[in-house]
Every structure is written in C-alpha cells, then in structure tokens.
C-alpha cells in the first residue's frame, strides 16, 4: 500500500552518524517503508545480461515482492515488465528462466509477446469497440538501465540517470570485468541460493569480523600452510587494507595492499597466486592478460585488485571475490541471498572450473565461510530484540577516516566507514 505523498513518516532520527537505532532492523512497519522507498523507488540491481543471452531468453526476478520478467527479443532489445496479466492479475510466467516468444496467462488465455504486447485475447468480440489491446501490454518497469552487462531497474516514476546513481561504484564494476582478458563474464554456472532469519541490511560490508566470524577459515589456512605470526594481521588495525565510502550508499573494502590470502576464496590457483606459474591453463590465461596489460607485473597488480573488488552497490548488489551476490529482503527478519559465480569469458576451461571449486569452498551454501556470516546475522536478529539499550554503534574510525580522489572517505579495513556510508544513504532515502 502506498502512503500518500506528504504523509510519509520520517525515520531520520533513527540514524545518527555514529550509531543507529535497532528498530530499523526489527520493525515490520519500517520494513514496509523500506520496500516502498528503497526497493520500489530507487535504482536496484535486477539481472546480468548473460542470463538472457539468446533472442527469446527470459528470466524472472523478484524485487521486494514484485516479480519482474526480463526478456530479450529477436532484435536483442532487453525489456523488463511486471509478471502480472493485465486482465485479472495472474502471473503469466511460472518458470524462473527459459526461452519463449509468448507468455500466455493460464487463467483466461490472454497472450503477450516477449516485447510485452498483448497479442491475443480469447473471444474478444464480447468487449466493446473501444477495447484497445495496445494499451493492455504487460506493465513496463519504469526505468531500465544497463552498465556493462549489469541490468538495473528503478520502479520510481522519476529516477536519476543510472550513471549518476552508480557514481564512484562504476570503476569497480569495470575492474571486476578485467579478470577476463576480454572483459566478459557469464553467470552461467547456476546459482547458490540461501535464506537467513535476519535483516537484509546485515549483508553489508565489514572488514572487522573476519578474524572472529571466520576463525575456522584462518584455522584451515594455518592447517594448510603452517602457523604464522602474521595470522589475521590483514584484517586488523595493523593492516594496510582499507574500508571505502564511495557515496550514494556504495562502499567497498580494499584488500590489495596486504597479502590477500586471508580469504579462502582467493586461494585457488588461477586467482590470486598469479605470480606462481601453475598449469598450462594458467600460462594461457596469464599470457592473454599480459598481451592486454603489457607486462606480467601489470597483470599481477591488476589481478590482485580485480579478483576481489569487494564492492557493495547499494542496496542489493555485491561483488565479492568472483561472486555476484544479490540481496532480496523478505521481511524485517528474513532475507534471501542469491550468489552467482562470474564465469570468465575467453579463458581456458580449467580456470573457470577452479573458480567454481574455490567459490564452493568459501561462499557455497554449505561452504566454510558464508554460513558463518549468516549464522551471525541470525544472532544479530535475536540480540536486537532485547532493546533495553537500542542503539548499535558504528563509530569505529570515525575521527580518522580521510577523503581521497577515489572515495568520499577511506579508513582502516576494520573501520566502520562502510556501514556509515550505507546508513547515511538509508537516512537520506528514508527521510
């Protein structure tokens, strides 16, 4: 239900620069307002163009509670419409993806082309002369924009340009693609679907939790490589790594300064350990990158950054390691997360096969990293119910963060620069 303009409640008092009120994670009324003001009124990530590569391909995505069909017609044009028959509202498509020239409503047989036009109405003679099929196509999503294969939509009547919204996040989408020698990725390796009993905003960006939440990952690394005095240092206040505020709620962690082995997902050959000549596939892969970037040193420098841009495009997209992660809020206390692995275009098959195994190791639904993140999100939701002291603290590094030419603010990896960046945008949108 849409609240009339001017009658919206303001939630700005719940977010201060150094702390936020826990009701924004637990209150169902605030959640409903978030759906209206964020998910239905702001640019959000919808799909990647590789999911609908061929003419006639479509997939169905859900933004908040609204199902959206994204399709590619025979001329290659990508469109997005709501999955709702214009007659009595049934969902016209019941498969998550496929290839179709038409969508036929199962209720009374109204039929739409994959351009969204109403092309067939059974027994149309019982409508009057003013019945106009051209006005009854599937409702179009108001704004659709693509940036280098990433498809975003806004359900708002008016939206800023996509480039304006992406702002300083865009160069990191670019960087993510450069792990492929031809800037091509495909989300063709299936999906890793998970759900947790916690608020969607917990899927944030946090450089402080690694040594604690992922203690067993460090244990596994110690087991593989032997004990090290440097254990965990990259995720500590002694780390040269950084947390970045990119503006518009976008943020990232920059782990290119320290030894990047602290994340299991980066351990796979063909990923981070590019200076160690591996198999023939590695040689082919590195040679193709070297041709583009000029030298092995340039390739190493780039891959060190491209293999984990660790970016959050607010509100619902993250690029973590090789993962394209999409956040879907279900209720204040339930969230779905779908992970896709970016399969690199124009690399030997073995490189992608190893990316898959590496993905499963850390990020997989039953992997060694992400399940512990979701466990913590669930415990957050439990803890926040006890709101005698309702404020949660986001003050870490607040006085020490600095502006830079590339970001609004940059702090130590363990600083809450990223959380403050997201909450500032939340406050702006929920005002």
């Amino acid at each position, binding site marked *: 239900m849409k609240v009339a303009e001017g009658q919206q409640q303001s939630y700005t008092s719940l977010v201060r620069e150094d702390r936020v009120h826990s009701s924004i994670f637990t209150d169902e009324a605030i959640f409903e307002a978030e759906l209206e003001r964020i998910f239905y009124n702001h640019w959000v990530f919808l799909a990647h163009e590789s999911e609908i590569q061929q003419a006639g391909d479509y997939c169905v995505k859900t933004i908040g509670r609204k199902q959206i069909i994204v399709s590619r017609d025979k001329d290659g044009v990508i469109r997005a419409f709501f999955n709702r028959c214009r007659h009595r509202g049934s969902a016209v498509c019941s498969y998550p993806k496929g290839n179709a020239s038409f969508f036929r409503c199962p209720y009374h047989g109204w039929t739409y082309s994959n351009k969204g036009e109403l092309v067939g109405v059974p027994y149309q003679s019982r409508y009057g002369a003013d019945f106009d099929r051209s006005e009854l196509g599937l409702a179009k999503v108001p704004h659709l924009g693509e940036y280098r294969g990433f498809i975003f939509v806004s359900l708002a009547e008016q939206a800023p340009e996509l480039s304006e919204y992406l702002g300083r996040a865009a160069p990191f989408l670019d960087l993510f693609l450069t792990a492929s020698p031809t800037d091509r990725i495909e989300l063709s*390796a299936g999906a890793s679907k998970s759900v947790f009993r916690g608020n969607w905003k917990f899927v944030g960006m946090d450089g402080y939790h690694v040594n604690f939440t992922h203690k067993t990952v460090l244990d596994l690394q110690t*087991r593989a490589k032997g004990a090290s005095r440097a254990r965990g240092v990259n995720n500590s206040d002694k780390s040269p790594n950084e947390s970045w505020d990119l503006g518009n709620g976008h943020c990232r962690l920059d782990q290119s300064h320290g030894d990047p082995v602290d994340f299991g997902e980066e351990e796979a050959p063909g990923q981070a350990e590019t200076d160690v000549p591996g198999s023939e596939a590695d040689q082919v892969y590195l040679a193709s990158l070297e041709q583009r970037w000029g030298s092995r040193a340039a390739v190493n420098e780039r891959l060190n950054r491209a293999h984990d841009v660790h970016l959050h495009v607010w509100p619902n997209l993250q690029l973590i390691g090789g993962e394209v992660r999409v956040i879907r809020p279900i209720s204040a206390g339930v969230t779905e997360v779908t992970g896709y692995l970016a399969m690199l275009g124009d690399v030997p098959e073995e490189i*992608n096969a190893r990316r*898959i195994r590496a993905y499963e190791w850390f990020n*997989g*639904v039953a992997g060694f990293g992400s399940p512990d993140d979701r*466990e913590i999100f669930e415990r957050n939701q439990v803890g926040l119910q006890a709101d005698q002291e309702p404020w949660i603290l986001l003050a870490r590094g607040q006085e020490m963060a600095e502006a830079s030419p590339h970001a609004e603010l940059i702090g130590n990896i363990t600083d809450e620069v990223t959380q403050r960046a997201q909450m500032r945008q939340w406050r702006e949108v929920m005002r």
Partner: protein
Amino acid sequence: MTAATAVGPGTFERVSSFLAYEAELTDRHRFDEWLSLWLPEGVYWVPSNEENYDPRTHLSIIYDNYERLQERCFRLSAEGVHSQDPRSRLCRTVGSVQVRATNPDGTVEVGATMVLVEVRFGVKNVYAARVEWVLLDAGDTFKIRSKKVILVDNDEPLGNVTFLL
C-alpha cells in the same frame, strides 16, 4: 558404468546395514569415523539447482574431494565453527534402498531416499533427498567411493546446511 553383474546373496542386507551405520555417524557428528569410511579418491557431491550436470561448469552446494572432506571434518570439529555451535540435532531415515548394480571392479551402486529432520535454536527443518552411493565392497565392510545427495529443494534458498548430509 561398467557392465553390471547380478546382485549377490546378502548384498542388500549388508548394504542396508552399512547405510544405517553411516546414517548414525552423520546424525551423531562422528566426523573422524565417517571420514574413515571414504576412499582417497572419494567424491561427496550435493548438486545445486539441478540433479545432474558437469561440476566443472556448474557450481554445487558441495563438491568435496577427499582433501576437502578432511577440511570439512576438521572445520566441523574446530572451535569457533559458529554455524554448528551449538550443533544441529539430527535424525534421518534412509529408505527405499536399491542395490542397482554390482560391478566387476568390486563396487556396488546403491540408491536410496533420505528424510532428515534437523533441530537447532528451536527451529525444526525437514530435508529430503535422493542419495546415490558407489561403494567398494571390502568384504567385511564397504568403503565410499562417491556419495551424491540430491536435495529436493536444491533450487530453493537453503538455510544452514553445514552438518553432514
């Protein structure tokens, strides 16, 4: 798959008994004993989204070789494995057991269905799967060459499935 020979007398009973034992080890989080059932070339596979595909081109919920199985059991035994601290309480039934083939290389191909109830933090979850094993008949017992667990909801969002399936 090599040419199958007839299922020998008693094989079904021996296989069923082995599956019950394996179920007990997984339900009770007896990781080291479970690991000792595996052959070094073993593969533990829980497909994602679909029942069958090339795991080199499609990601899986789990695709463990023996080395990764060791890591999984090490992690599940470690302090700080938050998603299994406290551990899930598990009870599974393995039924509709079929010995589908016995092969000249000494392996037995087995299919079954599994229904698993999990309780943790006051929430009860039910998982159901078709399970396929290739077991090496070692005379007095079996060793696992492969185990494939096809969850009926492997294309749905899954909660915490960090315990042994």
